[in-house]
């Protein structure tokens, strides 16, 4: 099957905005992603070393007595994201096992970069109380000053670092 072209960014912007609006209206919450990763980490830690989680006030503060960290709205939302992404990719002929990279980098190096960038973002998202979806997008649409500060800094960080990793992408 031929891969379809990606949709127009402006129309997709409106579509994404309407999904966010639906989430606001129906649930009173924004969209999220990194919070779910945090809950996965918490659930894993809690099943391997519950004593450690108890002793860490930051982690313990996120646990609810008698409730799994995975029993949360965000986990189900992220499950939906995975399904939605898969269905969209499949129906557009883009579902294939591969590694996305620029022409001048090896697969191995690319995967290491992906992992380390992910680790940085996981830490940053905790510090900023959310990631691009939960903080920048959702908070930004609700006029939060902190969300806009965060969003501007994402672009600053990205542009500042782009030169140093150009071999990976160009």
């Amino acid at each position, binding site marked *: 099957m031929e891969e379809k072209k990606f949709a127009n960014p402006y129309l997709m*912007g409106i579509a994404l905005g309407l999904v966010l609006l639906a989430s606001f209206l129906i649930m009173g919450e924004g969209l999220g992603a990194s919070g779910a990763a945090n809950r996965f*980490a918490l659930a894993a830690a809690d099943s391997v070393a519950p004593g450690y989680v108890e002793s860490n006030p930051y982690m313990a503060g996120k646990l609810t007595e008698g409730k799994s960290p995975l029993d949360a709205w965000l986990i189900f939302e992220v499950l939906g994201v995975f399904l939605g992404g898969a269905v969209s990719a499949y129906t557009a002929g883009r579902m294939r096992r591969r590694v996305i990279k620029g022409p001048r980098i090896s697969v191995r190096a690319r995967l290491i970069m992906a992992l380390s960038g992910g680790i940085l973002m996981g830490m940053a998202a905790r510090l900023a*109380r959310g990631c691009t*979806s939960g903080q920048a997008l959702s908070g930004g649409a609700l006029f939060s000053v902190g969300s806009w500060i965060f969003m501007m*800094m994402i672009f600053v960080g990205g542009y500042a670092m782009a030169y140093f990793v150009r071999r990976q992408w*160009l």
Partner: protein
Amino acid sequence: MIFPIESLVSEQYELGLVVAVAIGFLFGFVLERAGFGRATTLSAQFYGTDMTVFKVMFGAIVTAMIGVVIASGLGLLDFKALSESAVSNTYIVPMLVGGLVLGIGFIISGYCPGTSLVAASSGNLDGMMTFVGVTIGSFIYSAIEPSIASFHDSTDMGQLFFYDLFGVPPAVVAVGVTAMAIGMFFLADKLEPVFSRKFLHRDKSLDRRPRLVAFASFSVTAFVGLGLMFVPLGAQKQGPTTKALSISQYEFAKRLLDKPWSMRIIDLRKRDECAKQRIPGAECVPKDKLGELGLEYAPGARDLVLVAAQDLEVLPKPVEKYKGKVFVLQEGFDGWTRFALQDPPVPGADASEADRSLYGFRSALRQALTGAPPPPPPPSGVKKFVPKKRKKGGGCG
């Protein structure tokens, strides 16, 4: 007001989870269609060759922002309740640093946390690696957070909104943001071909029709939102808050410690009594002077807490026009004296866990407020109750 549908987070929790999967599905679907499952599309933003990230992101923000303004203008949405539940506090320095580090991680990995998941779902192994990284990173941060907690919680401004900062209605800010976004979109469309030729040595064409549709709908709806401000529709013009809520001494004391910025405390007793002793942060405004505060013009972002000598029977007139919530402290300042400033009764050995923790809380409170030495601990060795100072995270929290 119909929205948000509160039962979905309480009685109908399970139905809420079904909605979660549905909303997530659409979220993932749209991201994939926009090309956000590809690190090459996303990273191109930072070389200027393809500004899809910027366009989709700001297009979505403008759309949702205008939607929220219109829905609350039509009286369908409880804007205040939504803002309270979906927005985190503004922590200036943590957000500056967090944004910078996230941006760096973004260009290194080629994804942000949400898009890495979309990439993984369409079979991209690099996306999967990134999401694993995000999970590991969350764990590392959680592990070290207790040692950097003071930084984590620094420069906390509470919930801070542009409309409060500028003192204009949200609809006006929305029009401003829309105008700014359209300007930036034009600029992005001008820059893309320049950088495409420079870095990729190829031309880039622009599809003008969808852009025209998008810009036209942004402009029209933004002004509809603005126009609704002048049309009294249903619940949009909220009637005076004649119904004041009652707050218990315990709830009030907890809030005074956890979120003092969320309250404006007004002590209604005679000025000399109030001057002698009052709740920390309280303003001394005798009842007959309340009119001079201009409460009807205040933004109403903070909840008003009224403290009389005893229970307040009749709500003073000037308070009725306050836009935010109004609370009356149960039993007034006399109650406060008994609850917070005098020795709490020591619970017996057979007292319940709740009584013990209340005792711990009251002794700690009294000690903090009066500087008096701590009262004796309750009979058996039960840990002292330390009021938690954790705040809710963002939508990602």
